[in-house]
C-alpha cells in the first residue's frame, strides 16, 4: 500500500468568507499601502539621489514586467518572448500623446492626473496589441508561438526605429526614429511605480486565488483536457495575453514619463529575453518568484557596474585556481575524505558563522558607496534579515558547515592568486598575448550576469520558487533543502 501523498500548497483561498473580516482586511490593506506610499513619498523620496531613483524605478518596473509576463508564460503556459513590444507600445503611445496634447497645452490638467490618464492609454494600446498577438496563439503552440511573438517584438521595434516623420513613416507619424521620442515631460514619481508594482502583484495574486485563475493554470497543464472539461481555452489564452500586455503597457507609460524619452534601444530583444529569464529564474507560475527575480536581477545588472577593474592575468590566475579547487574537491569527495559532518564540522560551522557576519558587513559597507543612506539601510536590513532567516531554520548547522567550507575554498583561491599570477607573468607568450589588458567591470558585467543565470539554472532548474509562492514555511523548507515539485521529489 502506497503511503498517502504529501499535500501541496493550494493556490485557492482556504479561508471561509466572512463579510466583516473580508472588508476589514480589504480596507486595512488599502490603508497600509496608502500610508506606506505617503510616508515613502514624503520622507524617503526627498533623500534619494538620482542614481538611487533610477535603481528603484527600473527595479520595480522590471518587477512589474516580470509579473505581467509570468501571467502569460508561467500561469497560462504560453511561451511568449516578445514582451518588450508591449512595454514599448505602452511607452510610445503615452509619450506621444503627452508630447502632442499635454506639453503643447492643448489639454490642461494636473500632471499626476494626466499621467494616470496616460497610464490607462498605454494599457489600452498595449492590450489591443496583446489581442493581436493573442489571436495567433489560438493556432500556435510552444516553440511556434515563441517564434511568432519574437517576430512581433522585432516588428514593433523596427517600426518605431523608422518612424521619424519622414516619407517612409507610416502615416507620417513622428516617433523620433532611432533616437527615440524626445522631450516627454518627467511626470512619474517613484510612488507611482511602487503602486503599479503592488497593484500588479495583488491583481495576479487575486486572480489565481479564485476559481477563475484555475482555468488559466488548467490551460497551462493540459490544454486539451481543459477544453474538454469546459474551460474555454481560446478565451483564456487571449485574456492572459491582453492582461499581461496591458500591465506591460502601464509600465511602459510610467517609463516614458520617467525617462523623458523613449529610445527603441531600451526595448530590444534582449529586454524581452531578460524578462523571460526573470520569469524562469523566479519559477514559472510563481508570482512572488517573478517579482523577486525581476527586482533582484535588475539590481544585479545595474549593481555589477561597480565591480572594480581587474588585470587579465589576475583573472586567469583566479580561474585556474578555481578549477584546481574544484578538481581537488571532486578528488577528495570521490575518496570520501571530504567529511563535512565529521570532526571538522565545528571548524566549518565556526568559519561559516564568521563568514555570514562578514558577508553582511561587506554588503553593508560596499553596497552603494555612493548610494544614499536610504538604500544602504534598506540593503543592510535585507541582509540582516537573510542572516536571521538562515540562523532560524532547523538545518542551519548543516548549512553553516557548507557555507564555511565554501568560504574557506574561496579565501584559498583569493589568497593564492599572487602565487599563480606571479609565475604567469614570467611566461613570455602569455604576457605577449594578454599584455597589460585590464578588464573593466562594464565589459564583464554581462558575462558575470549570464554566468550567474547559468549557475542558478543548473542548481535549480525549476526556478528559485518553482511553482510555489512565498511563505515562511517555504523559507524554512528551502533552507532545509526539501523543496521539491512534488512529495516524491
Amino acid at each position, binding site marked *: 500500500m*502506497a503511503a*498517502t*501523498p*504529501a*499535500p*501541496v500548497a*493550494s*493556490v*485557492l*483561498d482556504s479561508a*471561509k*468568507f466572512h*463579510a466583516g473580516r*473580508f472588508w476589514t482586511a480589504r480596507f486595512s490593506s488599502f490603508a497600509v499601502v496608502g500610508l506606506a506610499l505617503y510616508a515613502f513619498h514624503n520622507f524617503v523620496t526627498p533623500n534619494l539621489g538620482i542614481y538611487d531613483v533610477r535603481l528603484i524605478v527600473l527595479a520595480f518596473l522590471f518587477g512589474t514586467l516580470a509579473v505581467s509576463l509570468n501571467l502569460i508564460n508561467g500561469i497560462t503556459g504560453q511561451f511568449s518572448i516578445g514582451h518588450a513590444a508591449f512595454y514599448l507600445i505602452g511607452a510610445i503611445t503615452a509619450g506621444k500623446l503627452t508630447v502632442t496634447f499635454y506639453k503643447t497645452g492643448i489639454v490642461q490638467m494636473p500632471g499626476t492626473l494626466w499621467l494616470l490618464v496616460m497610464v490607462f492609454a498605454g494599457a489600452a494600446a498595449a492590450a489591443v496589441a496583446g489581442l493581436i498577438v493573442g489571436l495567433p496563439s489560438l493556432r500556435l503552440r510552444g516553440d511556434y508561438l515563441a517564434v511568432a511573438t519574437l517576430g512581433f517584438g522585432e516588428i514593433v521595434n523596427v517600426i518605431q526605429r523608422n518612424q521619424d516623420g519622414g516619407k517612409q513613416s507610416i502615416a507620417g507619424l513622428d516617433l523620433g526614429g532611432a533616437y527615440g521620442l524626445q522631450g516627454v515631460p518627467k511626470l512619474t514619481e517613484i510612488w507611482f511605480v511602487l503602486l503599479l508594482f503592488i497593484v500588479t502583484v495583488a*491583481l495576479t495574486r*487575486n*486572480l489565481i*486565488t*479564485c*476559481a*477563475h*485563475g*484555475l*482555468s488559466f*493554470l*488548467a490551460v497551462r*497543464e*493540459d490544454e*486539451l*483536457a*481543459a*477544453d*474538454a*472539461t*469546459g*474551460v*474555454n*481555452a*481560446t478565451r483564456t489564452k487571449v*485574456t492572459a495575453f491582453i492582461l499581461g500586455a496591458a500591465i506591460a503597457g502601464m509600465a511602459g507609460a510610467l517609463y516614458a514619463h520617467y525617462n523623458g524619452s523613449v529610445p527603441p534601444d531600451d526595448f530590444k530583444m534582449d529586454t524581452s529575453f531578460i524578462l523571460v529569464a526573470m520569469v524562469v529564474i523566479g519559477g514559472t*507560475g510563481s508570482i512572488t518568484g517573478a517579482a523577486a527575480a525581476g527586482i533582484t536581477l535588475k539590481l544585479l545588472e545595474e549593481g555589477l557596474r561597480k565591480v572594480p577593474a581587474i588585470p587579465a592575468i589576475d583573472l586567469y590566475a583566479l580561474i585556474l585556481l578555481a578549477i584546481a579547487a574544484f578538481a581537488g574537491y571532486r578528488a577528495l569527495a570521490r575518496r570520501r575524505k571530504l567529511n563535512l559532518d565529521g570532526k571538522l564540522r565545528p571548524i566549518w560551522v565556526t568559519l561559516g558563522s564568521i563568514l555570514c557576519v562578514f558577508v553582511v558587513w561587506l554588503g553593508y559597507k560596499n553596497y552603494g558607496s555612493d548610494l544614499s543612506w536610504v538604500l544602504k539601510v534598506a540593503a543592510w536590513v535585507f541582509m540582516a534579515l537573510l542572516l536571521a532567516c538562515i540562523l532560524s531554520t532547523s538545518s542551519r548547522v548543516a548549512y553553516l558547515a557548507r557555507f564555511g567550507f565554501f568560504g574557506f575554498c574561496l579565501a584559498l583561491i583569493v589568497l593564492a592568486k599572487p602565487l599563480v599570477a606571479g609565475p604567469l607573468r614570467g611566461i613570455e607568450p602569455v604576457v605577449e598575448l594578454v599584455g597589460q589588458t585590464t578588464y573593466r567591470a562594464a565589459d564583464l558585467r554581462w558575462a558575470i550576469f549570464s554566468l550567474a543565470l547559468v549557475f542558478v539554472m543548473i542548481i535549480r532548474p525549476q526556478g528559485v520558487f518553482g*511553482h510555489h509562492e512565498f511563505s515562511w514555511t517555504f523559507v524554512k523548507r528551502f533552507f532545509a533543502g526539501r523543496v521539491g*515539485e*512534488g*512529495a*516524491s521529489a
Partner: protein
Amino acid sequence: MSVLDVQNLTIRFGGLVAVNNVSFQIEQGDLFGLIGPNGAGKTTVFNMVTGVYRPTSGSVKFNGREITGLSPNRVAGLGICRTFQNIRLFSALSVLENVVIGAYLRHRTSLFSALTYLPPACKETERLKNEAMRLLEVMDLSNVADARSADLPYGKQRRLEIARAMATQPELLLLDEPAAGMNPQEKEDLQKTVRRLRDEFGKTVLVIEHDMRFVMNLCEKIVVLDHGEEIAFGPPEQIRNDPKVIEAYLGEPV
C-alpha cells in the same frame, strides 16, 4: 428522444477511413458500451462526439440538438463530459483543484471581480470548492484532496478523472477505458461507482473498454466496432454469441 443520437458518423484522415458510417442511439439512463479491438476507432468516435475532431460526414445530436463541429468546451457546456484513455490530469495541481476546474464550468462571476477579489468571486470559489469536496467524497478521494494529482496511484488518478468530469455536472458521461491498468479489486470498485453514477446521480454513461468481463458485467447495451465499421449492436448476451464479433475480436466465447 435519445440523449445521444449518432448518425452515419464518418471521418477520414487522408486516405484512411478511421470511422465509417457508425450510428447508434443512447437513451436516458443507459449504461452503454463501445468495444472493439485495438485501432477499431473507438476513441476517434469519442473525439468526434466531444468536438476534438470534426467528422467528415454524419451528425451527432445531443438531446435533439445538433452538436457536430462544436468546440470541446461548448460540448462540455451542453452536458457531455469525458475522461481520457491516457490520463490527462492537471498534474501540478492538487486533487481538489482538478475537480474545481470541472466545476468552474458553472461559474457566474466576471473576470473583473476575480481580479479585484470582490465578495462574489470569494463566495463562488468557496461554493465550487465545497461542491468539489462532495464529489471527492463520492469518488472516495477526499482523504487525498490536497495531494498533487500526479502523485496519486494509478487507480486513484483514473477515479479523479471521473470526478473531474462529474464536476461539470454532465448529463452524459463518456469514459475512455476507465479500467485500464487497474487490478481486479479496483475494477470491481469502479464498476460499483459507475453504476452508482447512473442510479444515484441519473447520469447516462458511455464506456469504451477492453476488459470484456468489465463491459459485459457493466453495460446493458453494446456497440462493437472493427476497422471503423459497426459490426454488432445489442445486449451483452447477444454480443457474446454474435459470430461476427467472435470472429473479429473475441476469438472464442467468453
